[in-house]
């Protein structure tokens, strides 16, 4: 038995005015949605990440020192972080360099951490698998089989420390292009494809679904049967077929994704309109002589905006995913243009020697998917009237 304080047994004060007081502030539906969305931490984190990403995609390529297509084959596959070695020659000049174990080259590094260029071996002995480098009178031997650096007398060279690559902050790819610049440009392409394709889907889906739902009857049945037929096979297959017809490229990706993924949107809009058009305010509007387009645009669509918004936020990540999927199997944007899909597939080619190259595109796309998923989940919860407090 829990103990109940004696004053709890006292009768409550009856006050007719107090009964009328509204305890919670009166909120409109959208104020309530906004409040609940703001309270949702993962969704807000996702939104913040998306905003940062969009800003980076817009302004990043402008301020970047490198362009996404500029190649420098001498500086290919340079890592973002490396261990430096130093050798002082007889004249007192110190050469700082690092060893790239992927392609067995030595690169000179400036004191500020920029990659100055390739060091040419004075002698290459392919049988002993040794390369000889000369720094004044000093000789440094590079054993390519053991991946070891030593002086001519056999003492091993000790690394002097770690250095972050200052000329290419995220390193370079197999053609010596700056990874950061390509990442930013890839984000630009991937996001543009996603947003434009989603917008196209939005218009087609809302128009088609709205029309089917509003017309109802035979027209609705036929229109929805068509949607059913279309969605029998995976939409990815249509995108592939369309890409084959139009050849790869930025525009055709947008076109292909935009012209296929509207079916879900159409279904949701139709369902919404079907229930909403029974409402009295629609009948009232019709009695007052409102035209069909006006009823659709002014009365029905604004009221179904919640589910449409949720579908939109979920469409964007799937568009990003489909685009990268297409690029991955070689049907997306054409080189030298980059998207997260092409960047990942390029990284897979060099996975054995430079596994870290996979990290940036994989992380970028995964984080973006997380962000959109969290935002979409948060929006869905915020818009769900059943969860309203």
């Amino acid at each position, binding site marked *: 038995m829990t103990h109940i304080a004696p004053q709890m047994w006292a009768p409550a004060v009856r006050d007719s005015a107090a009964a009328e007081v509204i305890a919670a502030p009166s909120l409109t539906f959208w104020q309530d949605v906004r409040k609940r969305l703001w309270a949702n931490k993962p969704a807000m984190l996702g939104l913040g990440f998306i905003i940062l990403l969009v800003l980076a995609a817009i302004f990043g390529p402008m301020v970047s020192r490198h362009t996404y297509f500029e190649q420098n084959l001498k500086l290919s596959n340079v890592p973002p972080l490396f261990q430096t070695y130093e050798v002082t020659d007889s004249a007192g000049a110190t050469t700082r360099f690092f060893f790239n174990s992927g392609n067995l080259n030595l690169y000179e590094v400036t004191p500020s951490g920029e990659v100055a260029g390739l060091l040419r071996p004075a002698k290459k002995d392919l049988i002993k698998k040794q390369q000889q480098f000369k720094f004044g009178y000093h000789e440094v031997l590079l054993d390519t089989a053991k991946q070891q650096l030593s002086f001519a007398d056999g003492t091993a060279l000790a690394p002097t420390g770690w250095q972050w690559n200052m000329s290419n902050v995220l390193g370079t790819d197999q053609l010596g292009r700056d990874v950061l610049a390509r990442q930013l440009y890839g984000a630009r392409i991937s996001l543009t494809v996603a947003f434009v394709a989603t917008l196209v889907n939005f218009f087609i889906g809302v128009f088609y679904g709205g029309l089917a739902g509003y017309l109802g009857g035979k027209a609705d049945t036929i229109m929805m*049967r068509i949607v*059913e*037929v279309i969605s*029998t*096979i*995976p939409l*990815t*297959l249509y995108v*592939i*077929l*369309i890409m*084959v*017809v139009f050849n790869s490229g930025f525009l055709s990706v947008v076109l292909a994704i935009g012209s296929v993924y509207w079916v879900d949107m159409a279904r949701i809009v139709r369902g919404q309109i079907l229930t909403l058009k029974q409402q009295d305010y629609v009948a009232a509007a019709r009695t007052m002589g409102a035209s069909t387009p006006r009823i659709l645009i002014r009365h029905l669509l604004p009221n179904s905006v919640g589910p449409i918004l949720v579908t939109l936020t979920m469409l964007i*990540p799937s568009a990003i*995913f489909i685009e*990268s*999927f297409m690029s*991955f*199997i*070689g*049907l997306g944007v054409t080189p030298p243009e980059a998207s997260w899909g092409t960047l*990942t597939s390029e*990284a*897979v080619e060099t*996975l*054995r020697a430079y*596994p870290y190259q*996979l990290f940036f595109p*994989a992380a970028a*796309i*995964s984080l973006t*998917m*997380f962000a959109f*998923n969290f935002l979409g989940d948060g929006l869905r919860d915020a818009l769900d009237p059943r969860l309203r407090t």
Partner: protein
Amino acid sequence: MTAYVVQRLLLMLVTLFAIITLTFFLMHAVPGGPFTSEKMLQPEIQAALNAKYHLDDPLWLQYLNYLKGVLSFDLGPSFKYAGMSVNEIIAEGLPVTMKTGALALICVVALGVPLGIVAALNRNRWPDTLVMVIATIGVAVPSYVIATVALYVFALRLGWVPTFGLDDWRGYFLPVFALSGFWISFIARLARSSLLETLQQDYMITARAKGLKRGTVLIKHGLRNSLIPVVTVLGPVVANLLTGSFVIEQIFALPGIGRHFVLSITNRDYTAIMGITIFYAAVLMVMIFIVDMLYLVLDPRIKYRADAK
């Protein structure tokens, strides 16, 4: 019931017909014939090739012939592999794709559902959190990222599994894992939320109040009802396992249909693209049909009528 099945079968035929027509005209809308990509052919050879594959016929005749071929299960010759028919390409790749796909499907059901149940029964405790964190990762990270990271870690670094091929039974691990990762997570989330909803139903309390054992209530009343949404997504799961195989078979170099499909795309082998698409469509329609029938068995409330739906 019979009327419903008949109607479904008819609709399937119509759908298949629409897809055949669509793919045929899409592939014939591609600028240039199938042989334009090759080095400049002599006009006579070009004409001979066209005549051999009946490409000089009017389009409607080609279409009718193709339709006739598909109806008799003949998807025509491949344009790029001389002497190889599309049927042979499919027959060659089918076992591989079927094996990995079936294993992935088993994984999806056998891992996804129990994970969801464990999460739901331990709501807001650590098993739930763990499952939900894994499931969130699985839903957000694209399959090809999972595949390549797994390939690097388990095949290249640790060397536990071969990097490509299926000669070794361990070769199945990574492709199946990468293929099913998304859907295991998806099903786990779905099963969790569905079971949570079912657990709050009044009939669960009634059953307990009448003295049934916890386990009996959970299995007979809880699970059976909460698994219906899971069964409905199995159709899309099969479809996505098929399209997922494009990338997975590419990454792990498995000689399945998905890889052949991607190859025929890069080779611009139009008959192969057309044939494999139609094959996919047919397989999927049959699978979705089976799933719908399963749904009917599981949920006795649903009585399909020909006019309903």
